[in-house]
């Protein structure tokens, strides 16, 4: 075991490794171990939120103010409590009052800034000086040249036209809409490519964690008895994969839909 780690911390880490493998077992099929982990995390995360919400928000923003006799904070308190009338069928309309205030404020806050960041500034960004005599400065793939700027303008307008359904996509209008959908598809392709990397990253992180657990179990590579921990690590990991292979061969010929 890693000498820098206390035995208690090592046990916790081992438990975390166990929960990791338990969650992975879902890939084989839904099973009690996975269900256990899933239900446990729902509870723990809700409990965590309760504490964070109380000590983070409620205590400092409301309770302390009331303790300091800032009675004006009774107003948000009362409005907040009115929210709970939702549980009573007869009184649930009262909860509309606080909801209405929240919606009013959130909406009023958002309108000018949505317009600014998503619309006007985006339009502004397209109003660039096009250097017609040097369109391809820095080569075709240089995305800061005028050609790229021009393509962005065309692509954006075409994609907007594609989303405009009040006129039938025919003739020149249809042609522009086609450019729009091509642009959109390249955009979605880029998103998909980046998403694949994102998902794989999550898996790599778990492998890194399990390996960290192995290294902590071993302590240092030269420590006596380190071999047996590494062996356990590989036996567990390959054992799980092996079980999957055995099961796949056992159910060979059946498609997945048969099994579910």
């Amino acid at each position, binding site marked *: 075991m890693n000498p820098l780690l206390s035995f208690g911390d090592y046990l916790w880490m081992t438990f975390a490794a166990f929960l990791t493998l338990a969650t992975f077992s879902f890939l084989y099929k839904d099973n009690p171990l996975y269900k256990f982990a899933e239900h446990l995390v729902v509870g723990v995360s809700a409990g965590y*939120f309760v504490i964070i919400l109380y000590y983070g928000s409620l205590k400092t*923003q409301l309770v*302390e103010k009331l303790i300091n006799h800032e009675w004006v904070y009774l107003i948000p308190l009362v409005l907040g409590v009115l929210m709970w009338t939702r549980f009573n069928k007869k009184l649930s309309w009262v909860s509309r009052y606080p909801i209405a205030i929240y919606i009013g404020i959130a909406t009023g806050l*958002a309108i000018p800034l949505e317009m*600014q960041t998503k619309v006007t*500034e985006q339009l502004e960004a397209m109003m660039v000086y096009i250097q017609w005599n040097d369109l391809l400065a820095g080569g075709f793939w240089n995305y800061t040249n005028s050609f790229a700027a021009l393509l962005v303008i065309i692509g954006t307008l075409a994609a907007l036209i594609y989303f405009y359904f009040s006129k039938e996509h025919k003739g020149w209008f249809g042609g522009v809409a086609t450019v729009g959908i091509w642009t959109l598809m390249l955009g979605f392709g880029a*998103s998909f490519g980046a998403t694949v*990397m994102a998902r794989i990253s999550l898996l790599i992180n778990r492998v*890194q964690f399990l390996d960290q657990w192995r290294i902590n179990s071993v302590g240092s590579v030269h420590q006596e008895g380190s071999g047996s921990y590494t062996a356990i690590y590989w036996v567990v990991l390959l054992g799980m994969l092996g079980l999957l292979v055995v099961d796949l061969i056992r159910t060979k010929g059946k*498609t997945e839909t048969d099994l579910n």
Partner: protein
Amino acid sequence: MSNNQTNNNSNLSFLERLMLLDRRWVFLVLALVVVSTYYIPMKVPVPASTEVRSIYDAVEGLKEGDKILLAIDYDPNALAELHPMTYAILEQCFRKKVGVIITSLSQNGPGMAEQAILDIVDSTALPRTYNGVSYPGREIINGVDYCFLGYRAYFELVITGMGQNFRTFYSRDYYDVLLDSIPIMKDVQNYDDIEMVIDISGSNVVDAWIKYAAARYDVKLALGLTGVMMTDYYPYLGSGRIFGLMGGLLGAAEYESLADNPGLAMDGMKVQVWAHITIILFILIANIGYFGTRKKRGL
């Protein structure tokens, strides 16, 4: 599927069998590739893109005593991609004696933020050399070198509120200390008193930072995002609303490599290569199967 079809499976051609493959074979292959290639030594060079470099340069250009706000707005599900960014930036700031004000507006975020802070406080205690510059080990003191403000509900309101006064929502920090008694927060009233905001986010909190901080109060903002989100935020880079963007594990690895501080992101990139090759092969095989059996399916 009916039993009938199951029995007929033995008469299927190779390509047709390929199309009906149990998806758990796919799982198995991916698991084997990811686990085994993790132990194969391989170096993946990660030259930095302009949008990552501009964040690094901005942080590197800060002077001792400057302050930045680091928003750690992600839950454990985005830890893989975003933790490395947080670690690299925090360490860079601590080494350069830049003050860091940390908020965490995601539901399960504060625990993640605290984990990162404690780890980097430990590692900054040791001497190290980055990009040829040697830094001695240094004790990082809570309240002097950094301040962890923690969580407050309703991030859009909190972010707007901080534009007027941090104390509107944060009268106390995460450790229950009054903000007015924290040295680093003494001269900090609102966003005007910090150099920039770097938001590392895995959720829509990032939209609120763009609107309610960057646009409303003209704060210099850079983003660290998950791979899933990264492509969606390039328009803001184009409109100049944000000055830098790190996307996914690659963005994190680029930052680590710029900061000369290799961590989990650079470590993971080699597996990324093999896993991507595997997935591309899956796509190819499936397409060969699809086009090979198209005639038989009467298409």
